[in-house]
């Protein structure tokens, strides 16, 4: 507030006049007068980078050394187990050769649908008293039973159907055969007996299920 009360001077102001002499100061050679010098930061950063790299490289080298130790241990395991394993592989190849022989034998035996002697005995046991078998024709796909029935023709034909039903319901036969059908029934003019033919078709996957061992 006092400045406004002062009387303005007639002298020209000297403070606003630019310096008349050149500035000879060499700023590069002048000391750094900051509270913390710039060199400190530069050195600090350089040391920090170098330290970080040392730590990182050390960590990686330690990891590599650890990997090398694991690799050596794994190599020891391989060296210790390889001879035993090779021996077992050789044994297994020998086993496979022997196994092949068993498979060939199995294939030879498995083509048999039934043990024929047991099958004939079972057929015989299933026959009713009035039914006589004249022939049994066995093939790999089917069995044909041809026989005759004594008695009155009307009863005999019924007996043939009953016998076929009994075969169908009988467990060993139903397990073995896909279809059991009365394929032919006719009266023999010579003997007067009813002659019949029963066709038993094997199931596709039927194995030697009818008794007996080989």
């Amino acid at each position, binding site marked *: 507030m006092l400045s406004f009360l002062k009387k303005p001077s007639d002298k020209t102001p000297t403070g606003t006049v630019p310096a008349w002499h050149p500035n000879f100061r060499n700023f590069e050679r002048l000391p750094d007068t900051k509270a913390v010098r710039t*060199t400190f930061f*530069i*050195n600090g950063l*350089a*040391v920090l*980078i*170098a330290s970080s*790299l*040392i730590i*990182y*490289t050390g960590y*990686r080298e330690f*990891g*590599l050394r650890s*990997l*090398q130790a*694991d*690799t050596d241990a*794994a*190599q020891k*395991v*391989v060296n210790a*187990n*390889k001879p*035993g*394993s090779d021996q*077992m*592989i050789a*044994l*297994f190849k*020998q*086993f496979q050769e*022997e*196994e*092949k*022989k*068993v498979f*060939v*034998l199995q*294939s*030879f*035996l498995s*083509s*048999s649908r039934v*043990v*024929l*002697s047991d099958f*004939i*005995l079972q057929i015989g046991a299933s026959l009713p008293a009035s039914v006589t*078998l*004249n*022939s*049994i*024709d*066995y*093939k*790999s796909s089917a069995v044909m039973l041809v026989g005759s029935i004594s008695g009155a023709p009307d009863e005999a034909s019924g007996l043939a159907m009953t016998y076929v039903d009994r075969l169908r319901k009988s467990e060993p036969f139903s397990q073995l055969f896909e279809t059991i059908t009365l394929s032919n029934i006719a009266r023999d003019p010579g003997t007067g007996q009813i002659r019949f033919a029963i066709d038993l078709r094997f199931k596709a996957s039927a194995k030697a299920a009818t008794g*007996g*061992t*080989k």
Partner: protein
Amino acid sequence: MSIDKRTLVTGIKKYPLLVASGIVSVLLLTTLYVRSDLSDIKQAELDQLTAEGNRYRANIANSAQLKEQLDFLIQANNAVKERAFKAESMALNLQYFYRLEAETGVKYLDLRPGSRNEPGKTPKSTGTYIPLNYVVNVQGDFTQVITFLKRLEQGVYFCQINSAQATGVGSSVTLNLNLDLLGMP
């Protein structure tokens, strides 16, 4: 822009820590670059060796009883061999049938090698064993024929009946068989 030796020495003297850190950093970066693939290579090597070691150990563990099983299998196969005919001993093989005839009381109406292995023909080999085909036609009473059939099927030698036809006239039964006997080449 070339830096002369003096300036360089002066610079090093002026900023020793900076220069040392720079040199160390450059060396470490070079080392890291050069050895950058080593870790992957070592890891791959370790994985391969571990897998190999595990496989070997599994082979040994899984074959714990292999020797015993192999011995058993060899023994079983030797037993099967003893129950197989020799393919070339045709006359000796027929002796088997004649012995059966004598033991069971049936009579042969026909006995000959089948079409699959007639004399002079080599039977089709299925590997270790071969089927020796025979056509056999026997006659006898029911008991004799069944006994014959049982001896054939459940006897010493492995027999496979391909087809059979049994016909009965009175007490006599005729059995016509086409069969394979297990043979060895």
